[in-house]
């Protein structure tokens, strides 16, 4: 299991290289990457603030929970903070398991949880000023199925 909270950019392909490799008991690797999306057409940067200490703890306990619920061989979570460019990767999760169902479900679980339980806050920076991104009710509701 690897949890990274970092300001530095990361390379999705590089991170996946070697993930779940070199062992015979893994039949499925699922990964999800979130990129900085520009909905308004005016986004200059996305700023991500976090709560150092609690962020790492909540991501670890979330990954730990996933390992408890599904038979996972490995879990990777990377989440960036600081100022990010449009189109840049913000975060990624990857799961490795014997079969694909566990890998898919665990990846979705991790995404749902870290969207509304990990202490990150996004702020959009445009030429007109800055605005905090509001949390969506649908993200909170997504937790109910787990």
């Amino acid at each position, binding site marked *: 299991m690897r949890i990274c909270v970092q300001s530095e950019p990361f390379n999705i392909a590089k991170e996946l290289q070697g993930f779940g490799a070199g062992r015979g008991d893994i039949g499925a690797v699922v990964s999800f990457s*979130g990129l900085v999306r520009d909905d308004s057409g005016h986004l200059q940067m996305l700023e991500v603030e976090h*709560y150092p200490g609690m962020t790492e703890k*909540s991501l670890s306990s979330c990954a730990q929970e996933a390992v408890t619920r599904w038979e996972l061989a490995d879990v990777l979570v990377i989440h960036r903070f600081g100022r990010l460019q449009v189109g840049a990767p913000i975060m990624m999760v990857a799961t490795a398991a014997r079969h694909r169902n566990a890998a898919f479900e665990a990846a979705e679980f991790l995404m749902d949880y870290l*969207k*509304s339980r*990990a202490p990150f*806050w*996004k702020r959009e920076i445009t030429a007109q000023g800055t605005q905090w991104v509001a949390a969506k009710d649908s993200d909170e509701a997504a937790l109910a199925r787990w």
Partner: protein
Amino acid sequence: MAKLELVYFAWVRERIGRARESIETQAATPLQLIEELSARDERYGAALSDVSALRVAIDQELADFDTKLTGAREVAFFPPMTGG
């Protein structure tokens, strides 16, 4: 009186005008803490009055606004998270 470290994030931090502070308090819960702070300065009221738009963490664990603060060292107030 208990000593508490308070930390604020995102627009809560901006409205209060600081990221952290140490205080002495008699509050038994985060809700009482908000009442106490709001009586001290109107900036706290502006940032913390609507708890439905807020989350609280006690010693870096998400908590409820009526969780007991017994033994707590750090309390954080922030908006609902927008990670991912």
